[in-house]
Protein backbone atom coordinates (compact mmCIF):
# COMPACT_ATOMS: atom_id res chain seq x y z
CA UNK A 1 0.00 0.00 0.00
CA UNK A 2 1.46 3.27 -1.10
CA UNK A 3 -0.02 5.95 1.12
CA UNK A 4 2.03 8.80 -0.32
CA UNK A 5 0.86 8.07 -3.85
CA UNK A 6 -2.74 8.40 -2.73
CA UNK A 7 -2.09 11.53 -0.72
CA UNK A 8 -0.55 13.15 -3.79
CA UNK A 9 -3.48 12.03 -5.94
CA UNK A 10 -5.85 13.49 -3.39
CA UNK A 11 -4.14 16.90 -3.60
CA UNK A 12 -4.20 16.73 -7.38
CA UNK A 13 -7.88 15.83 -7.49
CA UNK A 14 -8.81 18.62 -5.14
CA UNK A 15 -6.74 21.26 -6.91
CA UNK A 16 -6.94 20.10 -10.50
CA UNK A 17 -8.30 23.52 -11.47
CA UNK A 18 -5.15 25.29 -10.32
CA UNK A 19 -2.55 22.68 -11.16
CA UNK A 20 -3.81 21.53 -14.54
CA UNK A 21 -6.46 23.83 -15.96
CA UNK A 22 -4.91 27.17 -15.04
CA UNK A 23 -1.66 26.45 -16.93
CA UNK A 24 -3.63 24.97 -19.83
CA UNK A 25 -5.91 27.98 -20.10
CA UNK A 26 -2.99 30.41 -20.02
CA UNK A 27 -1.07 28.28 -22.51
CA UNK A 28 -4.10 28.05 -24.79
CA UNK A 29 -4.46 31.83 -24.66
CA UNK A 30 -0.81 32.38 -25.57
CA UNK A 31 -1.02 29.68 -28.23
CA UNK A 32 -4.10 31.18 -29.87
CA UNK A 33 -2.65 34.66 -29.72
CA UNK A 34 0.73 33.78 -31.20
CA UNK A 35 -0.47 31.25 -33.76
CA UNK A 36 -3.32 33.57 -34.69
CA UNK A 37 -1.01 36.50 -35.31
CA UNK A 38 1.37 34.30 -37.27
CA UNK A 39 -1.47 33.16 -39.50
CA UNK A 40 -2.72 36.69 -39.86
CA UNK A 41 0.79 37.84 -40.72
CA UNK A 42 1.30 35.25 -43.45
CA UNK A 43 -2.11 35.67 -44.98
CA UNK A 44 -1.94 39.45 -44.95
CA UNK A 45 1.66 39.34 -46.07
CA UNK A 46 0.88 37.37 -49.19
CA UNK A 47 -1.96 39.59 -50.25
CA UNK A 48 -0.54 43.02 -50.02
CA UNK A 49 1.88 44.61 -47.70
CA UNK A 50 5.28 46.05 -47.26
CA UNK A 51 8.06 44.16 -45.60
CA UNK A 52 11.28 45.50 -44.44
CA UNK A 53 14.22 43.11 -44.38
CA UNK A 54 17.95 43.54 -44.77
CA UNK A 55 17.60 47.20 -45.51
CA UNK A 56 15.27 46.77 -48.50
CA UNK A 57 11.53 46.91 -48.90
CA UNK A 58 9.57 43.99 -50.29
CA UNK A 59 6.01 43.67 -51.38
CA UNK A 60 5.42 40.15 -50.18
CA UNK A 61 6.41 37.97 -47.31
CA UNK A 62 7.89 35.34 -49.58
CA UNK A 63 10.17 37.83 -51.22
CA UNK A 64 11.21 39.21 -47.92
CA UNK A 65 11.97 35.76 -46.52
CA UNK A 66 13.86 34.62 -49.56
CA UNK A 67 16.21 37.55 -49.23
CA UNK A 68 17.33 36.45 -45.78
CA UNK A 69 20.96 35.43 -45.87
CA UNK A 70 22.17 31.99 -44.80
CA UNK A 71 24.00 33.52 -41.83
CA UNK A 72 20.91 35.33 -40.60
CA UNK A 73 18.90 32.18 -41.07
CA UNK A 74 21.33 30.23 -38.90
CA UNK A 75 21.26 32.91 -36.24
CA UNK A 76 17.47 32.89 -36.30
CA UNK A 77 17.36 29.09 -36.07
CA UNK A 78 19.79 29.16 -33.16
CA UNK A 79 17.68 31.67 -31.32
CA UNK A 80 14.59 29.62 -31.99
CA UNK A 81 16.23 26.34 -31.00
CA UNK A 82 17.52 27.62 -27.70
CA UNK A 83 14.90 30.14 -26.75
CA UNK A 84 11.57 28.59 -27.67
CA UNK A 85 10.44 27.80 -24.08
CA UNK A 86 10.53 31.54 -23.34
CA UNK A 87 7.06 31.90 -24.85
CA UNK A 88 5.70 29.92 -21.88
CA UNK A 89 6.93 32.39 -19.24
CA UNK A 90 3.33 33.49 -18.45
CA UNK A 91 2.48 29.85 -17.72
CA UNK A 92 5.28 29.70 -15.17
CA UNK A 93 4.17 32.99 -13.61
CA UNK A 94 0.72 31.45 -13.30
CA UNK A 95 2.36 28.53 -11.51
CA UNK A 96 3.78 30.99 -8.98
CA UNK A 97 0.31 32.28 -8.13
CA UNK A 98 -1.20 28.82 -8.06
CA UNK A 99 1.45 27.50 -5.68
CA UNK A 100 1.24 30.60 -3.48
CA UNK A 101 -2.49 30.31 -2.92
CA UNK A 102 -2.42 26.54 -2.71
CA UNK A 103 0.09 26.69 0.15
CA UNK A 104 -1.85 29.42 1.88
CA UNK A 105 -5.01 27.32 1.86
CA UNK A 106 -3.95 23.70 2.03
CA UNK A 107 -3.94 23.41 5.83
CA UNK A 108 -6.44 26.19 6.48
CA UNK A 109 -9.33 25.11 4.27
CA UNK A 110 -9.54 21.61 5.75
CA UNK A 111 -9.97 23.20 9.17
CA UNK A 112 -12.45 25.75 7.92
CA UNK A 113 -14.78 23.19 6.34
CA UNK A 114 -13.95 20.69 9.12
CA UNK A 115 -13.01 18.01 6.59
CA UNK A 116 -9.84 17.62 8.68
CA UNK A 117 -12.04 15.52 10.96
CA UNK A 118 -12.47 13.09 8.10
CA UNK A 119 -8.81 13.12 7.05
CA UNK A 120 -7.74 12.57 10.62
CA UNK A 121 -9.99 9.53 10.90
CA UNK A 122 -7.70 7.78 8.41
CA UNK A 123 -4.48 6.16 9.61
CA UNK A 124 -2.31 8.80 7.97
CA UNK A 125 0.17 10.73 10.07
CA UNK A 126 0.29 14.52 10.15
CA UNK A 127 3.87 14.26 8.95
CA UNK A 128 2.85 12.38 5.79
CA UNK A 129 -0.07 14.70 5.14
CA UNK A 130 2.04 17.86 5.41
CA UNK A 131 4.82 16.22 3.37
CA UNK A 132 2.36 15.32 0.61
CA UNK A 133 1.12 18.90 0.44
CA UNK A 134 4.64 20.33 0.33
CA UNK A 135 5.64 17.85 -2.38
CA UNK A 136 2.57 18.81 -4.37
CA UNK A 137 3.62 22.46 -4.24
CA UNK A 138 7.31 21.86 -4.91
CA UNK A 139 7.19 19.03 -7.45
CA UNK A 140 3.78 18.00 -8.76
CA UNK A 141 2.51 21.47 -9.68
CA UNK A 142 5.81 22.58 -11.30
CA UNK A 143 6.10 19.33 -13.30
CA UNK A 144 2.60 19.82 -14.70
CA UNK A 145 3.22 23.49 -15.48
CA UNK A 146 6.54 22.64 -17.15
CA UNK A 147 4.91 19.93 -19.23
CA UNK A 148 2.21 22.32 -20.37
CA UNK A 149 4.85 25.01 -21.04
CA UNK A 150 6.98 22.74 -23.18
CA UNK A 151 3.96 21.47 -25.08
CA UNK A 152 2.96 25.06 -25.81
CA UNK A 153 6.49 26.03 -26.82
CA UNK A 154 6.79 23.06 -29.18
CA UNK A 155 3.40 23.78 -30.70
CA UNK A 156 4.24 27.40 -31.35
CA UNK A 157 7.71 26.71 -32.72
CA UNK A 158 6.38 23.96 -35.01
CA UNK A 159 3.59 26.20 -36.29
CA UNK A 160 6.10 28.94 -36.95
CA UNK A 161 8.36 26.58 -38.89
CA UNK A 162 5.50 25.13 -40.92
CA UNK A 163 4.23 28.59 -41.86
CA UNK A 164 7.75 29.70 -42.71
CA UNK A 165 8.27 26.60 -44.84
CA UNK A 166 5.04 27.22 -46.72
CA UNK A 167 6.43 30.62 -47.52
CA UNK A 168 9.68 29.17 -48.78
CA UNK A 169 11.69 29.68 -45.65
CA UNK A 170 12.69 26.22 -44.48
CA UNK A 171 13.94 26.16 -40.91
CA UNK A 172 13.38 22.50 -40.13
CA UNK A 173 16.89 21.37 -40.88
CA UNK A 174 18.49 24.30 -39.11
CA UNK A 175 16.35 23.96 -35.98
CA UNK A 176 16.03 20.19 -35.67
CA UNK A 177 19.67 19.79 -36.61
CA UNK A 178 20.66 22.11 -33.81
CA UNK A 179 21.66 20.23 -30.67
CA UNK A 180 20.46 23.26 -28.73
CA UNK A 181 16.88 22.37 -29.65
CA UNK A 182 16.98 19.14 -27.66
CA UNK A 183 19.28 20.46 -24.99
CA UNK A 184 16.90 23.34 -24.26
CA UNK A 185 14.15 20.86 -23.61
CA UNK A 186 16.20 19.00 -21.03
CA UNK A 187 17.62 22.21 -19.60
CA UNK A 188 14.11 23.54 -18.98
CA UNK A 189 13.32 20.46 -16.94
CA UNK A 190 16.63 20.81 -15.11
CA UNK A 191 15.37 23.97 -13.40
CA UNK A 192 12.98 21.86 -11.38
CA UNK A 193 15.33 20.91 -8.50
CA UNK A 194 16.48 24.54 -8.20
CA UNK A 195 12.85 25.65 -8.08
CA UNK A 196 11.96 23.11 -5.39
CA UNK A 197 14.85 24.15 -3.15
CA UNK A 198 14.44 27.85 -3.78
CA UNK A 199 10.67 27.84 -3.17
CA UNK A 200 10.93 25.85 0.06
CA UNK A 201 11.02 28.80 2.48
CA UNK A 202 7.93 30.39 0.93
CA UNK A 203 6.09 27.08 0.75
CA UNK A 204 7.02 26.31 4.36
CA UNK A 205 6.11 29.77 5.62
CA UNK A 206 2.75 29.88 3.84
CA UNK A 207 1.84 26.38 4.95
CA UNK A 208 2.74 27.22 8.51
CA UNK A 209 0.49 30.27 8.45
CA UNK A 210 -2.16 28.09 6.83
CA UNK A 211 -1.92 25.59 9.69
CA UNK A 212 -1.95 28.27 12.34
CA UNK A 213 -4.29 31.10 11.32
CA UNK A 214 -7.77 31.00 12.81
CA UNK A 215 -9.02 33.09 9.91
CA UNK A 216 -7.79 35.09 6.91
CA UNK A 217 -4.44 33.38 6.29
CA UNK A 218 -3.64 35.79 3.44
CA UNK A 219 -3.82 38.82 5.73
CA UNK A 220 -1.58 37.13 8.27
CA UNK A 221 0.94 35.86 5.75
CA UNK A 222 1.25 39.10 3.78
CA UNK A 223 -0.08 41.70 6.20
CA UNK A 224 2.25 40.98 9.09
CA UNK A 225 5.51 41.44 7.15
CA UNK A 226 4.10 44.53 5.40
CA UNK A 227 2.93 46.13 8.66
CA UNK A 228 6.31 45.20 10.14
CA UNK A 229 7.98 47.10 7.32
CA UNK A 230 5.74 50.10 7.83
CA UNK A 231 6.58 50.16 11.55
CA UNK A 232 10.27 49.90 10.79
CA UNK A 233 9.99 52.83 8.34
CA UNK A 234 8.32 54.91 11.05
CA UNK A 235 11.05 54.09 13.49
CA UNK A 236 13.57 54.98 10.81
CA UNK A 237 11.83 58.33 10.31
CA UNK A 238 11.67 59.18 13.98
CA UNK A 239 15.02 57.81 15.09
CA UNK A 240 18.21 58.01 13.10
CA UNK A 241 17.44 55.21 10.60
CA UNK A 242 18.60 52.27 12.69
CA UNK A 243 17.19 49.71 10.26
CA UNK A 244 18.30 48.76 6.80
CA UNK A 245 14.90 48.77 5.13
CA UNK A 246 16.20 47.65 1.78
CA UNK A 247 17.47 44.45 3.35
CA UNK A 248 14.18 44.01 5.16
CA UNK A 249 12.12 44.22 1.98
CA UNK A 250 14.51 41.89 0.18
CA UNK A 251 13.97 39.41 2.96
CA UNK A 252 10.20 39.81 2.71
CA UNK A 253 10.38 39.31 -1.05
CA UNK A 254 12.48 36.19 -0.57
CA UNK A 255 10.05 34.87 2.01
CA UNK A 256 6.87 35.52 0.06
CA UNK A 257 7.96 35.53 -3.57
CA UNK A 258 10.19 32.50 -3.91
CA UNK A 259 7.37 30.35 -5.29
CA UNK A 260 7.68 32.30 -8.55
CA UNK A 261 9.89 30.39 -10.97
CA UNK A 262 13.04 32.29 -11.83
CA UNK A 263 12.74 34.59 -8.82
CA UNK A 264 16.18 33.26 -7.88
CA UNK A 265 17.84 35.34 -10.58
CA UNK A 266 17.75 38.16 -8.02
CA UNK A 267 20.38 36.16 -6.12
CA UNK A 268 22.77 35.82 -9.08
CA UNK A 269 26.15 37.41 -8.61
CA UNK A 270 27.10 39.97 -11.25
CA UNK A 271 29.61 38.72 -13.73
CA UNK A 272 30.43 41.48 -16.24
CA UNK A 273 32.92 39.33 -18.17
CA UNK A 274 30.31 37.01 -19.54
CA UNK A 275 28.84 37.70 -22.91
CA UNK A 276 25.27 36.50 -23.21
CA UNK A 277 23.68 35.84 -26.61
CA UNK A 278 20.73 33.87 -27.88
CA UNK A 279 22.79 30.73 -28.22
CA UNK A 280 24.18 30.56 -24.71
CA UNK A 281 21.49 32.35 -22.68
CA UNK A 282 19.90 29.11 -21.52
CA UNK A 283 23.28 27.64 -20.60
CA UNK A 284 24.20 30.73 -18.65
CA UNK A 285 20.89 30.83 -16.85
CA UNK A 286 21.03 27.17 -15.91
CA UNK A 287 24.62 27.17 -14.75
CA UNK A 288 24.09 30.37 -12.76
CA UNK A 289 21.02 28.74 -11.21
CA UNK A 290 22.99 25.68 -10.22
CA UNK A 291 25.74 27.87 -8.82
CA UNK A 292 23.13 28.92 -6.26
CA UNK A 293 23.46 25.44 -4.82
CA UNK A 294 26.75 26.68 -3.43
CA UNK A 295 25.14 29.71 -1.82
CA UNK A 296 24.11 30.12 1.80
CA UNK A 297 21.00 31.96 0.62
CA UNK A 298 19.52 28.86 -0.98
CA UNK A 299 20.33 26.39 1.77
CA UNK A 300 19.48 28.67 4.64
CA UNK A 301 16.14 29.35 2.99
CA UNK A 302 15.55 25.64 2.46
CA UNK A 303 16.39 24.91 6.10
CA UNK A 304 14.00 27.63 7.30
CA UNK A 305 11.33 26.24 4.99
CA UNK A 306 11.75 22.76 6.47
CA UNK A 307 11.60 24.20 10.00
CA UNK A 308 8.30 25.90 9.09
CA UNK A 309 6.99 22.60 7.74
CA UNK A 310 7.83 20.89 11.03
CA UNK A 311 5.94 23.68 12.75
CA UNK A 312 2.98 23.03 10.45
CA UNK A 313 3.06 19.32 11.34
CA UNK A 314 2.92 20.19 15.04
CA UNK A 315 0.12 22.68 14.48
CA UNK A 316 -1.93 20.17 12.53
CA UNK A 317 -1.32 17.53 15.15
CA UNK A 318 -2.65 19.50 18.11
CA UNK A 319 -4.73 22.36 16.78
CA UNK A 320 -8.11 22.01 18.48
CA UNK A 321 -10.89 22.72 16.05
CA UNK A 322 -13.39 23.29 18.85
Amino acid at each position, binding site marked *: *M*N*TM*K*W*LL*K*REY*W*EHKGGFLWAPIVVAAFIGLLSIGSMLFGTVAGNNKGMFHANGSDFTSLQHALSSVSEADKTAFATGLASGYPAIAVPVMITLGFVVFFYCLGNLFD*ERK*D*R*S*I*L*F*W*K*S*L*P*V*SDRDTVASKAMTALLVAPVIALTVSLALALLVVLTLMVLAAINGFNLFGAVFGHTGFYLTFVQTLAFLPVYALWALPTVGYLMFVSSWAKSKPFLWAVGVPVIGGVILSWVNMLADSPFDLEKYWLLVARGLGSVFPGSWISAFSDNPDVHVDAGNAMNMLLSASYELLASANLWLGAAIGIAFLFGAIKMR*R*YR*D*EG
Partner: protein
Amino acid sequence: MSSVLTARSLSKHYGKQAAVDRINLDIAPGRIIGLIGPNGSGKTTTLKAALGLIPFEGELKVLGFDPRTERDDLMKDVCFIADVAVLPRWIRVREALDIVEGTHPKFNRSKALAYLAKTKLKPEMKVKEMSKGMIVQLHLAIVMSIDAKILVLDEPTLGLDILYRKQFYQNLLEEYFDENKTIIVTTHQVEEIEHILTDLIFIREGKITLNTTMDEIAERFTEVMVNSENYAAAKALAPIDERSVFGKTVFLFDGVERSTLAALGDTKNPGIADLFVATMKGTYA
Protein backbone atom coordinates in the same frame (compact mmCIF):
# COMPACT_ATOMS: atom_id res chain seq x y z
CA MET B 1 -11.21 -9.47 27.95
CA SER B 2 -9.66 -6.27 29.25
CA SER B 3 -10.87 -2.75 28.58
CA VAL B 4 -10.54 -1.17 25.18
CA LEU B 5 -10.47 2.24 26.79
CA THR B 6 -9.13 3.19 30.20
CA ALA B 7 -9.06 6.69 31.61
CA ARG B 8 -7.57 7.62 34.95
CA SER B 9 -8.00 11.14 36.19
CA LEU B 10 -8.47 12.40 32.64
CA SER B 11 -8.76 16.19 32.53
CA LYS B 12 -8.84 18.85 29.89
CA HIS B 13 -8.75 22.55 30.66
CA TYR B 14 -9.62 25.43 28.40
CA GLY B 15 -8.01 28.31 30.21
CA LYS B 16 -9.05 27.85 33.83
CA GLN B 17 -12.28 26.13 32.90
CA ALA B 18 -12.20 22.34 33.20
CA ALA B 19 -14.06 20.85 30.25
CA VAL B 20 -13.28 17.38 31.51
CA ASP B 21 -12.62 17.05 35.22
CA ARG B 22 -10.65 14.01 36.47
CA ILE B 23 -12.70 11.35 34.77
CA ASN B 24 -12.15 7.65 35.44
CA LEU B 25 -13.53 5.31 32.85
CA ASP B 26 -13.29 1.69 31.71
CA ILE B 27 -14.96 0.53 28.55
CA ALA B 28 -15.19 -3.18 27.77
CA PRO B 29 -15.13 -4.59 24.24
CA GLY B 30 -18.30 -5.64 22.48
CA ARG B 31 -20.44 -2.89 23.97
CA ILE B 32 -22.44 -0.01 22.57
CA ILE B 33 -22.02 2.89 24.91
CA GLY B 34 -24.14 5.98 24.91
CA LEU B 35 -22.27 9.02 26.19
CA ILE B 36 -25.00 11.43 27.08
CA GLY B 37 -24.75 14.93 28.44
CA PRO B 38 -26.00 18.47 27.95
CA ASN B 39 -24.25 20.93 25.65
CA GLY B 40 -20.80 21.80 26.91
CA SER B 41 -20.68 18.92 29.39
CA GLY B 42 -17.43 17.54 28.03
CA LYS B 43 -18.64 14.62 25.87
CA THR B 44 -16.97 15.76 22.70
CA THR B 45 -13.83 16.82 24.56
CA THR B 46 -13.55 13.36 26.11
CA LEU B 47 -13.93 11.71 22.73
CA LYS B 48 -11.45 14.09 21.12
CA ALA B 49 -8.92 13.22 23.79
CA ALA B 50 -9.46 9.52 23.12
CA LEU B 51 -9.01 10.07 19.39
CA GLY B 52 -5.75 11.96 19.84
CA LEU B 53 -7.20 15.15 18.43
CA ILE B 54 -6.35 17.31 21.44
CA PRO B 55 -3.76 17.25 24.22
CA PHE B 56 -5.01 16.43 27.74
CA GLU B 57 -3.89 15.75 31.30
CA GLY B 58 -4.07 12.47 33.15
CA GLU B 59 -3.83 8.95 31.87
CA LEU B 60 -5.69 7.60 28.90
CA LYS B 61 -5.14 4.36 27.02
CA VAL B 62 -7.15 3.34 23.99
CA LEU B 63 -6.47 -0.24 22.86
CA GLY B 64 -3.29 0.04 24.89
CA PHE B 65 -2.09 3.10 22.97
CA ASP B 66 -1.56 6.59 24.30
CA PRO B 67 -3.52 8.82 21.90
CA ARG B 68 -1.01 11.64 22.44
CA THR B 69 2.07 9.78 21.29
CA GLU B 70 0.83 6.71 19.46
CA ARG B 71 -1.99 8.14 17.39
CA ASP B 72 -0.69 6.81 14.09
CA ASP B 73 -0.89 3.21 15.35
CA LEU B 74 -4.14 3.82 17.14
CA MET B 75 -5.95 5.05 14.06
CA LYS B 76 -5.55 1.71 12.29
CA ASP B 77 -8.04 0.23 14.77
CA VAL B 78 -10.17 3.21 15.65
CA CYS B 79 -12.61 4.88 13.32
CA PHE B 80 -14.77 7.89 13.94
CA ILE B 81 -17.44 10.16 12.60
CA ALA B 82 -17.04 13.44 14.41
CA ASP B 83 -19.86 15.76 13.51
CA VAL B 84 -22.09 15.54 10.45
CA ALA B 85 -21.06 16.31 6.90
CA VAL B 86 -17.32 16.67 7.36
CA LEU B 87 -16.53 14.89 4.11
CA PRO B 88 -14.62 17.29 1.84
CA ARG B 89 -17.05 18.99 -0.53
CA TRP B 90 -14.97 18.54 -3.67
CA ILE B 91 -14.61 14.77 -3.42
CA ARG B 92 -16.47 12.25 -5.57
CA VAL B 93 -17.82 9.00 -4.16
CA ARG B 94 -15.32 7.06 -6.27
CA GLU B 95 -12.41 9.23 -5.15
CA ALA B 96 -13.35 8.92 -1.49
CA LEU B 97 -13.37 5.13 -1.79
CA ASP B 98 -10.05 5.21 -3.67
CA ILE B 99 -8.34 7.27 -1.00
CA VAL B 100 -9.66 5.27 1.93
CA GLU B 101 -8.73 2.05 0.14
CA GLY B 102 -5.28 3.42 -0.58
CA THR B 103 -4.57 4.57 2.95
CA HIS B 104 -6.52 2.26 5.26
CA PRO B 105 -5.30 -1.34 5.58
CA LYS B 106 -8.63 -2.51 7.01
CA PHE B 107 -10.96 -1.08 4.42
CA ASN B 108 -13.07 -3.45 2.35
CA ARG B 109 -14.15 -1.77 -0.86
CA SER B 110 -16.68 -4.35 -1.98
CA LYS B 111 -18.47 -4.00 1.33
CA ALA B 112 -18.68 -0.24 0.86
CA LEU B 113 -19.99 -0.69 -2.69
CA ALA B 114 -22.64 -3.06 -1.39
CA TYR B 115 -23.82 -0.48 1.14
CA LEU B 116 -23.78 2.26 -1.47
CA ALA B 117 -25.81 0.13 -3.86
CA LYS B 118 -28.69 0.47 -1.41
CA THR B 119 -28.57 4.26 -1.65
CA LYS B 120 -29.03 6.78 -4.41
CA LEU B 121 -25.34 7.62 -4.43
CA LYS B 122 -23.45 7.22 -7.70
CA PRO B 123 -19.67 6.86 -8.09
CA GLU B 124 -19.24 10.14 -9.95
CA MET B 125 -21.33 12.18 -7.51
CA LYS B 126 -19.57 14.95 -5.63
CA VAL B 127 -20.19 15.57 -1.95
CA LYS B 128 -21.24 19.17 -2.66
CA GLU B 129 -24.10 17.86 -4.79
CA MET B 130 -25.43 15.68 -1.98
CA SER B 131 -27.98 16.38 0.72
CA LYS B 132 -26.81 16.18 4.30
CA GLY B 133 -28.46 12.79 4.66
CA MET B 134 -26.65 11.44 1.60
CA ILE B 135 -23.30 12.66 2.91
CA VAL B 136 -23.93 10.75 6.11
CA GLN B 137 -24.88 7.66 4.09
CA LEU B 138 -21.56 7.86 2.26
CA HIS B 139 -19.62 8.41 5.45
CA LEU B 140 -21.36 5.52 7.14
CA ALA B 141 -20.77 3.24 4.16
CA ILE B 142 -17.05 4.03 4.40
CA VAL B 143 -16.86 3.63 8.15
CA MET B 144 -18.83 0.38 8.20
CA SER B 145 -16.46 -1.10 5.64
CA ILE B 146 -13.49 -0.52 7.91
CA ASP B 147 -12.85 -3.40 10.26
CA ALA B 148 -12.03 -1.25 13.27
CA LYS B 149 -12.10 -2.30 16.90
CA ILE B 150 -13.61 0.94 18.15
CA LEU B 151 -16.04 3.19 16.35
CA VAL B 152 -16.67 6.62 17.81
CA LEU B 153 -19.74 8.52 16.68
CA ASP B 154 -20.06 12.10 17.86
CA GLU B 155 -23.50 13.45 16.99
CA PRO B 156 -23.49 11.48 13.73
CA THR B 157 -27.10 12.24 12.85
CA LEU B 158 -27.45 15.87 13.89
CA GLY B 159 -29.74 17.73 11.54
CA LEU B 160 -30.94 14.63 9.69
CA ASP B 161 -34.58 13.74 9.29
CA ILE B 162 -36.07 10.81 11.14
CA LEU B 163 -35.85 8.43 8.15
CA TYR B 164 -32.10 8.88 7.80
CA ARG B 165 -31.61 8.68 11.56
CA LYS B 166 -33.52 5.42 11.95
CA GLN B 167 -31.76 3.90 8.98
CA PHE B 168 -28.38 4.99 10.30
CA TYR B 169 -28.70 3.20 13.61
CA GLN B 170 -30.40 0.22 12.09
CA ASN B 171 -27.54 -0.33 9.64
CA LEU B 172 -25.05 0.09 12.39
CA LEU B 173 -26.67 -2.49 14.61
CA GLU B 174 -27.61 -5.04 11.99
CA GLU B 175 -24.69 -4.93 9.63
CA TYR B 176 -21.74 -3.63 11.52
CA PHE B 177 -21.78 -4.36 15.20
CA ASP B 178 -20.42 -7.62 16.62
CA GLU B 179 -18.84 -8.84 19.85
CA ASN B 180 -15.36 -7.74 18.76
CA LYS B 181 -16.35 -4.17 18.17
CA THR B 182 -17.08 -1.34 20.52
CA ILE B 183 -19.22 1.62 19.56
CA ILE B 184 -19.24 4.84 21.53
CA VAL B 185 -21.95 7.26 20.52
CA THR B 186 -23.03 10.69 21.66
CA THR B 187 -26.32 12.23 20.63
CA HIS B 188 -29.08 14.46 21.87
CA GLN B 189 -31.70 12.21 20.35
CA VAL B 190 -31.49 9.78 23.25
CA GLU B 191 -34.85 8.11 22.68
CA GLU B 192 -33.71 6.91 19.28
CA ILE B 193 -30.65 5.08 20.45
CA GLU B 194 -31.96 3.80 23.75
CA HIS B 195 -32.88 0.36 22.33
CA ILE B 196 -29.46 -0.25 20.77
CA LEU B 197 -27.31 0.72 23.76
CA THR B 198 -25.77 -1.79 26.14
CA ASP B 199 -24.21 0.81 28.41
CA LEU B 200 -25.01 4.32 29.43
CA ILE B 201 -22.75 7.08 30.68
CA PHE B 202 -24.10 10.43 31.80
CA ILE B 203 -21.67 13.28 31.87
CA ARG B 204 -22.27 16.68 33.41
CA GLU B 205 -19.91 19.59 33.84
CA GLY B 206 -16.93 17.43 33.00
CA LYS B 207 -17.78 14.71 35.49
CA ILE B 208 -19.40 11.32 35.06
CA THR B 209 -22.67 11.27 36.96
CA LEU B 210 -23.89 7.84 35.90
CA ASN B 211 -22.05 4.88 34.42
CA THR B 212 -24.03 1.70 34.17
CA THR B 213 -25.42 -0.99 31.89
CA MET B 214 -28.90 -0.84 30.44
CA ASP B 215 -29.83 -3.99 32.38
CA GLU B 216 -28.84 -2.36 35.61
CA ILE B 217 -30.87 0.70 34.78
CA ALA B 218 -33.96 -1.45 34.47
CA GLU B 219 -33.25 -2.91 37.89
CA ARG B 220 -32.22 0.27 39.61
CA PHE B 221 -34.65 2.87 38.36
CA THR B 222 -38.40 2.70 38.55
CA GLU B 223 -41.07 5.15 37.50
CA VAL B 224 -44.33 5.12 39.42
CA MET B 225 -47.54 6.96 38.62
CA VAL B 226 -49.12 7.87 41.96
CA ASN B 227 -52.59 9.20 42.90
CA SER B 228 -52.82 12.12 45.26
CA GLU B 229 -53.70 9.87 48.24
CA ASN B 230 -50.34 8.08 47.95
CA TYR B 231 -48.35 11.23 47.31
CA ALA B 232 -46.94 11.56 50.84
CA ALA B 233 -46.07 7.86 51.04
CA ALA B 234 -44.19 8.05 47.75
CA LYS B 235 -42.45 11.25 48.75
CA ALA B 236 -41.22 9.49 51.91
CA LEU B 237 -39.26 7.00 49.80
CA ALA B 238 -37.02 9.83 48.54
CA PRO B 239 -37.75 9.98 44.78
CA ILE B 240 -35.06 11.57 42.63
CA ASP B 241 -37.62 13.32 40.47
CA GLU B 242 -41.29 14.10 40.26
CA ARG B 243 -43.56 15.58 37.65
CA SER B 244 -47.32 15.81 37.34
CA VAL B 245 -49.30 14.27 34.54
CA PHE B 246 -53.12 14.58 34.33
CA GLY B 247 -53.54 15.25 38.02
CA LYS B 248 -51.34 12.33 38.98
CA THR B 249 -47.71 12.49 39.95
CA VAL B 250 -44.96 10.51 38.27
CA PHE B 251 -42.08 9.74 40.62
CA LEU B 252 -38.68 8.43 39.64
CA PHE B 253 -36.92 6.22 42.17
CA ASP B 254 -33.34 5.07 42.31
CA GLY B 255 -32.69 1.77 44.10
CA VAL B 256 -36.12 1.28 45.66
CA GLU B 257 -37.64 -2.22 45.46
CA ARG B 258 -40.17 -2.44 42.69
CA SER B 259 -42.55 -4.49 44.85
CA THR B 260 -42.65 -1.67 47.39
CA LEU B 261 -43.43 0.84 44.68
CA ALA B 262 -46.05 -1.33 43.02
CA ALA B 263 -48.25 -0.81 46.08
CA LEU B 264 -48.30 2.95 45.37
CA GLY B 265 -49.31 2.88 41.73
CA ASP B 266 -48.43 1.67 38.22
CA THR B 267 -44.67 1.06 37.81
CA LYS B 268 -42.64 1.05 34.64
CA ASN B 269 -39.06 1.34 33.44
CA PRO B 270 -38.10 4.94 32.87
CA GLY B 271 -36.86 6.06 29.49
CA ILE B 272 -33.31 7.37 29.19
CA ALA B 273 -34.69 10.75 28.31
CA ASP B 274 -36.64 11.01 31.58
CA LEU B 275 -33.66 9.73 33.51
CA PHE B 276 -31.48 12.25 31.78
CA VAL B 277 -33.78 15.16 32.49
CA ALA B 278 -34.12 14.09 36.13
CA THR B 279 -30.39 13.78 36.75
CA MET B 280 -29.42 16.89 34.81
CA LYS B 281 -31.81 19.28 36.59
CA GLY B 282 -30.34 22.65 37.20
CA THR B 283 -27.62 22.29 34.57
CA TYR B 284 -28.37 25.61 32.91
CA ALA B 285 -29.62 27.35 36.06
